């Protein structure tokens, strides 16, 4: 029995250290990935896995990944394992990988350690993040110039959602200080029914714009906007097919494209960031915010002009869309 257990443990350790999926190009450019959960699930871990696959095909890289299932004891070993094999880039997909990367990085100066949803910049450890408050700022301008009140429905008050809503509020306030806004957090990312009722209650309280930010549950908000015939936005994914007339703008963040771009800079040897990396509207390959041409009523010309002007100012750094430091 003991032997069997030991063998099993050995296999588990081998799997955890990434021996199972060895890279195929020993001498070429190689990228390793640490994910905190299963890549077969649609969502956070899948985003990183898809990005890794794109790096493999587009940059002709050797790639490998390891699923660590939120087991911090293994983080450092996993980083060290990739770096000691001479991997050029290792991405830790989540801020929880920060500490382990910082511990390992000084020993491997030739490896670039990237950390998702982190604001760190320390030698060869670089944090990556997407700043959703920027497109939300533009949504705020649109809503405040065309309506009287907006209802914001969030999943949970986590930093990315809090920042996005702050961006919306600042954008709305920049064009109309009297524009009314209320927030509801449903406390779930799956309860589509609660999201819908939250949105309907905001409409009953006078909202003529609904802003979802609750992953899958956000679809309930779009459904409510369709039934109440008020304006709304498609956030993170393109849901225009659900409510063609009511969705005024679509915001999509292609994080994978950002990873590919940075990996290619590392490959060329031109990656030398002065600070941590925040993808924003400036990164037109990563962050898209577009108005929906099928929206009814169509977005007015002066509103389009105001959005374009604000977009330019945000890209130039003249408008701050959130108070939290980058």
């Amino acid at each position, binding site marked *: 029995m003991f032997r069997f257990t030991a063998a099993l443990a050995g296999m588990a350790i081998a799997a955890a250290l990434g021996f199972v999926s060895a890279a195929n190009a020993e001498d070429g450019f190689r990228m390793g990935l640490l994910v905190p959960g299963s890549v077969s699930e649609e969502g956070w871990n899948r985003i990183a896995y898809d990005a890794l696959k794109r790096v493999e095909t587009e940059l002709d890289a050797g790639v490998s990944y390891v699923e660590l299932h939120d087991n911090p004891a293994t983080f450092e070993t996993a980083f060290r394992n990739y770096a000691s094999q001479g991997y050029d880039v290792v991405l830790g997909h989540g801020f929880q990988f920060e500490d382990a990367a910082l511990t390992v990085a000084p020993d491997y100066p030739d490896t670039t350690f990237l950390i998702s949803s982190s604001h760190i910049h320390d030698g060869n450890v670089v944090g990556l993040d997407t700043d959703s408050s920027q497109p939300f700022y533009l949504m705020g301008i649109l809503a405040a110039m065309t309506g009287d009140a907006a209802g914001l429905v969030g999943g949970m008050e986590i930093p990315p959602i809090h920042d996005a809503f702050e961006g919306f509020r600042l954008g709305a306030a920049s064009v109309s200080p009297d524009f009314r806004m209320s927030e509801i957090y449903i406390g779930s990312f799956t309860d*589509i*029914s609660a999201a*819908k*009722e939250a949105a309907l209650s905001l409409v009953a*309280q*006078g909202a003529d714009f609904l802003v979802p930010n609750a992953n899958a549950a956000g679809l309930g908000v779009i459904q409510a906007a369709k039934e109440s015939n008020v304006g709304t936005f498609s956030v993170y994914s393109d849901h225009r097919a659900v409510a063609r007339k009511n969705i005024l703008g679509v915001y999509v963040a292609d994080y994978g494209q950002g990873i590919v771009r940075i990996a290619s800079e590392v490959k060329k040897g031109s990656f030398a960031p002065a600070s941590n990396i925040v993808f924003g509207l400036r990164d037109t390959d990563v962050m898209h915010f577009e108005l929906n041409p099928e929206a009814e009523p169509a977005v007015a010309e002066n509103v389009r002009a105001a959005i374009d002007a604000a977009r330019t100012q945000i890209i130039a750094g003249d408008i701050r869309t959130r108070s939290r430091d980058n």
Partner: protein
Amino acid sequence: MDDILNLGLVAATLGASWRLATPLIFAALGEVFAERAGVLNIGIEGMMLTGAFTGFAAAFASGSVPLGLLAGILGGMAIGLVFAVFTVTVKANQIVVGAAINLLGMGLTAFLFRTFYVSTGLGVEIAQPIAIPFLSDLPVIGAALFRQNAIVYATIPLTFLVWVVLFRTSFGLTLRAVGEHPKSVAVVGRSVAAYRYGAILIGAAFAGLGGAFLTLGHSNQFVENITSGRGFIALAVVVFARWSPVGAFFVALLFGLFYAVQLQLQAQPQLGVPYQLFQALPYVMTIIVLVLVRSRRGAPKMLGVAYDG
């Protein structure tokens, strides 16, 4: 935003309460059936999820809401049959089997959804609201309360039906006897196992219907874990209602009201109360209820006990 005590807003909140209570009412009615027969089915969450998925899948394929509802009921019953085999025939611990059913429902529906549907958000046409003549024309409350879809209205006749079956038919009398004193049922030559199978399957059908309401009568699509704990709240509803179907209807409405009110209050920043307090309201209520109703008075005597006949 507007004044909280605006009459139209109160009516809108009541309408929302009824819609939010609908899946709880169905699930709780089903659980009353099962528990009255002495079966503690904590697997309703998994059965609801299954019903939500099979209902969505059938409606997506056929474009028909009634067909979808039927599929939701059958999906719930299929999982119910698994529960019945293990608890009644195999006589396994009901709590353990129920917990397993919940995990099964969660994993199976997530797996099937990802395999067969790309999450584009494209949904189905849901049941349309029906305005009840005269009542829907009442000032203020009419439009908010009496423009619901048929599934929401169905909570009232179905509650009545469950009460009639449980308390005014021979079948109901025997079923309740199975939960109180199964020996006496066996002595008169009736099969305790058959009645428990029946009670579990009826309960699972209701749970499946409650789940299907979420995808076909409220939001228009399936989302992983769309039930988000409603099956567990339904369990608390049954205890609070002291195993009465009519009681379950009103208690579920109360829970729906709490939920609707908390959503409404969150949007009132001038109250100066942290929204987390409101968010916790339905769950705090559940705990208070379970503490207050801690005695087993009114509970079927054989609840959770396998019958060795």
